[in-house]
C-alpha cells in the first residue's frame, strides 16, 4: 500500500501515563521479576520475589488510588485503545486487591513444606525417582505422590510470581481495552501464564498437568471463537473500536447477520473465560487439578476480568442492539444457573463443587451484565468484588484441610471437621453462607444489587428463575455445612494445618471483606456506581 512507502513519520499518540500507571507498574515489575528469576541464586529468589510482588501490587494500588482521587472522570488513551473510566478503576482496584490475596496464598510455604509449586520444566523422571523411593511402602503410584522429600526441596519454584504478574497485567489490560484487538491480545496475555500456572502443582502432578493441557486446548479453541467473531464484526462495522461499533449498528449497510454472528462468537469466547455454562466444561477439571492457590487466583481474578470485559462489550459496543441479543443471553444465563446448581449437587470433591458454584454465580453475574443500566454496571461490579473475596477465602480454607497425601478435597474427608477444628469450620460455614447469599454477608448484598438492576431493566421472570436457582444452589453449600457439623469424623480424617501468616492474612482479608460488604456495603456500592463507561 502506498502510505507505507511514503514513510510518513509515525505520530506517537499522546499517552496519559498517570492513568495507566498501575498497568505499567505491574507489567514492568513482571519483567524485572523475570530477571530476578534469571540472575539471583536459587535460595534468594523466594524472599525477593515475594517482596517484589507485594511491593508491585501495593505500589500499583497506590498509583491507582492517587489517580482515582485526582484524575478526570473517564478518558481514553494510547490512541483510544485503552479506556480509563470509573468501571476500569474499580475493576483494577478489585483485581489488585484480589491478586494481593492470591499472592499471599501462593507465597505460603508453611502449609505445604516448600510451597505448593514445582517447576513445570523439572523432568518427570527426577520426580518419579524421588517419589518412588518414598512411595513404595505406601503403595501409591509414584506420579500421584511425586514430591520431593522435605530435606531435598526446601525451596519453592518461584516462576509462579512473574507468571502471576503477567497474568494480572493481562487482566488489567483486558478490562480497560477499548477495542477488540487490544482485548484479544490482553486475553492471550492473561491466558498463557495461567495455562502454565495450572501445571505447577507439587502434588498430584498428572492431574495438574492434565488440567493445564485441557485448559490450554480449550482456551485456544475459545480464543479462535473470539477472533472469528472479531473478524465478522470488523466486516460489519469497519472498525474495531467499541464506541464506533455502537455507532455503526445504526448506520452500517452490511447484513445484520455479520453483526449478530460476530457478537455470538465474541460472547462465546468471553463466556468461556468467565466459565458461564455451557462453556464451563473446563472449569471443574482445571479448578480441581491446579494448585489450590492458583485456583484461587483463577477463580477470583479471571472471573473479574472476564466479566469486566463482557460488561464493556455489551454496554459500550452493543448496548443499543440489546433487543437482538438479550433473549439469547437469557437462555445462556438460565442454562448456566441450572447447570451450576444442579450438577453442583452431585459433586464429591470440594474443589469441583466450588467450580460448579462459580458456574452458577456466572449465571447471576450475567444477569447483571445484561442489564444495560447504571445499576447493571454497579451491581455487577459490586458482585465481582464480593464474589472474588469470598471465593479467594474459600480456596484458602480448602488448602488447609490436608492429610498425608496433600489436600483432602474429597467431601467425605470433610465429615465432622467442626469437631476437630471449630474455627476453620465456622469460617468455612460463613463463607458458604455468603456464596449461598444469606443476609449479612456480601453474597446477599451482591445478589440483591444485581437482581434489583435486572428487575429495573424489565427482566422480572429471569430474576424469579435466579431466585429459585439460588435456593437450589444453597443446598450444596448447606450440605457441606451439615457434613462438617453433623457427621461423624472419619477415623483417619485429614488434619487441619495451622496456617502460616500469609495464608491467615489472605483468609482473614477475604472473610473481613465478605462481612463488611454484607453489613455496610454503602461505600463499595458507591465506588461501583461512581460512573459509567466512556465512549
Amino acid at each position, binding site marked *: 500500500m502506498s502510505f507505507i512507502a511514503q514513510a510518513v513519520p509515525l505520530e506517537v499518540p499522546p499517552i496519559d501515563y498517570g492513568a495507566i500507571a498501575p498497568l505499567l507498574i505491574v507489567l514492568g515489575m513482571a519483567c524485572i521479576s523475570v530477571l530476578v528469576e534469571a540472575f539471583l541464586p536459587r535460595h534468594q529468589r523466594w524472599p525477593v520475589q515475594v517482596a517484589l510482588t507485594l511491593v508491585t501490587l501495593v505500589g500499583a494500588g497506590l498509583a491507582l488510588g492517587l489517580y482515582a482521587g485526582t484524575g478526570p472522570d473517564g478518558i481514553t488513551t494510547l490512541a483510544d485503545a485503552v479506556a480509563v473510566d470509573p468501571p476500569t478503576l474499580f475493576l483494577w482496584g478489585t483485581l489488585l486487591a484480589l491478586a494481593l490475596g492470591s499472592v499471599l496464598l501462593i507465597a505460603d510455604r508453611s502449609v505445604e513444606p516448600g510451597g505448593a509449586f514445582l517447576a513445570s520444566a523439572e523432568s518427570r523422571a527426577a520426580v518419579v525417582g524421588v517419589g518412588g523411593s518414598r512411595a513404595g511402602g505406601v503403595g501409591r503410584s509414584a506420579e500421584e505422590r511425586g514430591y520431593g522429600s522435605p530435606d531435598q526441596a526446601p525451596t519453592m519454584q518461584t516462576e509462579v510470581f512473574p507468571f502471576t504478574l503477567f497474568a494480572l497485567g493481562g487482566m488489567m489490560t483486558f478490562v480497560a481495552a477499548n477495542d477488540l484487538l487490544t482485548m484479544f491480545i490482553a486475553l492471550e496475555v492473561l491466558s498463557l501464564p495461567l495455562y502454565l500456572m495450572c501445571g505447577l502443582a507439587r502434588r498430584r502432578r498428572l492431574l495438574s498437568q492434565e488440567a493445564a*493441557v485441557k485448559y490450554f*486446548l*480449550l482456551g485456544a*479453541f*475459545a480464543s479462535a*471463537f473470539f477472533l472469528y467473531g472479531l473478524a465478522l464484526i470488523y466486516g460489519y462495522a469497519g472498525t474495531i473500536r467499541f464506541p464506533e461499533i455502537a455507532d455503526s449498528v445504526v448506520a452500517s449497510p452490511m447484513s*445484520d*447477520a455479520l453483526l*449478530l*454472528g460476530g*457478537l*455470538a*462468537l465474541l*460472547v*462465546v469466547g468471553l463466556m*468461556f473465560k468467565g466459565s458461564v455454562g*455451557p462453556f464451563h*466444561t*473446563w472449569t471443574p*477439571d482445571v479448578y480441581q487439578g491446579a494448585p489450590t492457590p492458583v485456583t484461587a487466583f483463577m477463580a477470583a481474578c479471571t472471573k473479574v476480568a472476564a466479566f469486566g470485559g463482557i460488561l464493556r462489550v455489551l454496554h459500550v459496543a452493543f448496548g443499543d442492539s440489546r433487543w437482538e*441479543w438479550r*433473549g*439469547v443471553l437469557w*437462555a445462556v444465563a438460565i442454562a448456566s444457573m441450572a*447447570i451450576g446448581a*444442579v*450438577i453442583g*449437587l*452431585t459433586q*464429591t470433591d470440594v474443589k469441583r463443587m466450588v467450580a460448579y458454584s462459580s458456574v452458577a454465580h456466572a449465571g447471576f453475574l450475567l444477569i447483571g451484565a445484561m442489564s444495560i443500566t447504571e*445499576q447493571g454496571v*454497579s*451491581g455487577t461490579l459490586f458482585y465481582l468484588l464480593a464474589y472474588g473475596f469470598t471465593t479467594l477465602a474459600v480456596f484458602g480454607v480448602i488448602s488447609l484441610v490436608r492429610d498425608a497425601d496433600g489436600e483432602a478435597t474429597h467431601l*467425605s474427608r470433610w465429615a465432622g471437621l467442626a469437631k476437630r477444628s471449630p474455627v476453620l469450620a465456622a469460617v468455612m460455614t460463613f463463607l458458604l*453462607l455468603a456464596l449461598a447469599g444469606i*443476609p*449479612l454477608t456480601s453474597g*446477599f*448484598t451482591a445478589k*440483591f*444489587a444485581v*437482581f*434489583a*438492576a435486572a*428487575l429495573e431493566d424489565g427482566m422480572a421472570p429471569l430474576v424469579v428463575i435466579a*431466585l*429459585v436457582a439460588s*435456593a437450589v444452589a*444453597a*443446598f450444596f453449600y*448447606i*450440605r457441606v455445612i*451439615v*457434613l462438617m457439623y*453433623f457427621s461423624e469424623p*472419619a477415623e483417619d480424617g485429614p488434619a487441619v494445618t495451622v496456617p502460616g501468616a500469609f495464608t491467615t492474612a489472605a483468609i482473614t482479608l477475604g472473610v473481613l471483606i465478605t462481612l463488611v460488604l454484607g453489613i*455496610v*456495603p*454503602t461505600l463499595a456500592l*458507591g465506588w461501583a456506581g461512581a460512573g459509567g463507561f466512556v465512549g
Partner: protein
Amino acid sequence: MLTAVPPVELPEIGAASGAASLAWLLFVLPALGALVLFVTGRRANAWGHWLGVATVLASFAIGLAIFFETLGLSPEQRTRELHLFDWMSVGSFTVDFGVRLDPLSLTFVLLITGVGSLIHIYSVGYMAPHAGGDGDDDHAEPGGDSSRRRFFAQLNLFVAAMLVLVLGNNFVLLYLGWEGVGLASYLLIGFYQDRPSAATAAKKAFLMNRVGDVGLAIAIFLLWLELGTVQYSEVFERIGEVGAPTLVAITVMLLLGACGKSGQFPLQAWLPDAMEGPTPVSALIHAATMVTAGVYLIARSGPIYNLTETGRLVVTLVGVVTLLIGAIIGCAYDDIKKVLAYSTVSQIGYMFLAVGLGPAGYALGIFHLLTHGFFKAGLFLGAGSVMHAMNDDVDMRRYGGLARHMPITFVTFGLGYLALIGFPLLSGYFSKDAIIEAAFGQEGWQGWVYGGAATLAAGLTAFYMTRLVLMTFFGEKRWQNLKSADGHDYHPHESPVTMTAPMIVLAIGSVGAGAILSGIGLTEWLAPSLGELRESEHGVLPHAVIPWLVVGISALGVLIAYLVVGRRPTPVERPERVSLPVRAARRDLYANAINETFIARPGTWLSRALVFVDNRGVDGVVNGTAALLGGSSGRLRRFQTGFVRSYALSMLGGSVLVIAAMLAVRFA
C-alpha cells in the same frame, strides 16, 4: 362474602427519642452475647450461659422501658422510627437499617425477650452437664460445658435475629431476620449432632424453609419493582397504586413465606420433625416465637392484605386446612413432643385464620399468638421436665401415673393444658373463642366453614390434649416394669428449680394472660399498627351462643378422651391394627408422602446426593436413578467425562446454538 376493606388510616411516624433511642441495643446485646460465646471458646465454658441469660434479660429490661415510655404517649404518637444507618444503596434505591417501634413490634419484643429470658434460665438447668443428675448429660457431649456454651450462643443468635425480624422498618431487614432465625433454628434442631435423625430433621427444616424464603424474596422484589421502595411506611402508603393481579401475587408469595416459617399447609411437615432439637428450643423457637413469624408477617402486611379479598381468602383457607390437619394428626401420635408440635401447627392455623379475616381478626391473631406463647412454651417446658425425669423417653405409652412423682410439673402442665383447651376464664378461652366468634362472624358459607372447622378443631384439641395428660400423669405406672433404651430403670423425679421456676411463671401467664390482656385492652393498644378491630354484625350465629357451643364441644372432646383412654389400660406397644383414619393420622395424613411425590421426588437427587456424601462416597448416585431430575443430573454429570474432545464438542454445540438463536431472533 368478604367485603372490601376501606383503607386503614396509617399512623404518623415520629422520630424515636428517650428510651426508644436505645432500641438498637435490643438486638445488639444478644448478638454480642452470641459473638462472645462463639469467639471465646472454651474459656467461656464456666460463665458463658450466664452471659447468654444476662444479655437477653437486659434486652427485656430495655424492651420494658421502651414499652412504658410508649404507653405514656398518645396513640397517634406511638409509632416511631429510629434510623441507624443506610444499609445498601443501589442507584436510586436505598435500604435503611432502621428500627420501627410501634405497638405491634413492641408486643413482639416483650414476648421474645420475656419468654426468651425464661427459657434461657430453664436451659441453664436443662443443658447442665453432670450436675448430679440434674443435667441432660445423656445428650451432652464429652465436653459437656462446650456443648452448653454452643447452645447458648445459638440461642442468643436466635433472639437477636428474631428481634431484627420484628423491629426492622422495611421488608429487607425483615428478610435478614427471617434468614437469621432460620439459620439459628437449623443449627439448634441439629444440636444433638450424634443423632442422624437430628441432622435429617435440620435438613428437612432447611429444605422446606427455602421454598418459603424464595416466596418471600419474590414478594419483596415484586413490591420493589412496583413501588421502588421496601420501607414499610412508604409501601403501605402507596400500595394502592399496585394493580390487582400483582397485588394478589404479592400476597400469595408473602403467604408462601409465612407458611414455610410457620409450618402451615402445605409446608407443615418440617415442624414436628424439628422436635429433634433440645426441648427449650422446641419451646422458644418452635412454639412461642419463630414459628409465629408468619403471623407477624401477615399482620404487619395488613395494609396490603386489606386491599385484596382473594389474598385474604387464601390465608384463611390455609389457616382452616392447617388447624384441622394439626388437630387430627395430634390425636394419633404417642410421642409427647410431636403431639405438642402438631398442636402448635393447629394453633398457628387459628392465628392464620384470624389474620386472614382482615381488620376483623389481625388483633385477635396476635392476641392468640401471645397467649399461645405462654401456654405452649409452658407445655413444652413441662414435657421437657417429664422427659428429663424419664430418661429422655418421649413415648407416652411408657409414662403413666407421673402426677404424684412430679407435682410441680403436673400442676403447671395441667394449667397450660386447661388454657390450651379453652377452659373458661383461662387464657386460651379468651383468645381462641374470640377467633371462633370472628370466624362465625363471616357471612354466608365462609362463616359456616370457618366457624365449623374452628369449633371442630377445638373439640379435637380437647381430645388429644386430654389423652396426652391422661397417658402421662394418670393411670397405671407403666414405666415400672420397663427399662429405657439405654438399659436403665426409670426413676421419675421433680426437676431442679431453674427448670421449675420458669414453668411456674409461664403457668401463671397461661392462667392470667388472656384475662389481663383482654382486660387492659390489647386490641386498642395494637390499633395504631393494625387498625381498629372491626366486629362483624352479620354473623351466621348469634354471639351469645358461640362460647357455649365451643365449651360444649370441648367438654365433649374431654369426655371422649376419658372414655377412650382414661378408662382402659394403655398398651405399652403401639397397636398396629387400627382403623383407617388413625393410620392416616399416624402417617401425618400422608403429608410426607405427598411431599415425597410433589416436592421431594424432584428433590430425590438431592437426598441421594446427601445420603451419598453421608455414606462416605459410595458411588451409586449416577446409576439407576429413576427420578426425573436425578436422572438428568446424572446424565449431565456423565457429560463431564474428562475428555477434552467431548468438552470441546459441548462448547461447539453451545456456540452453534447461541449463533443460531441470535440469528433466529433477528431473522425469524
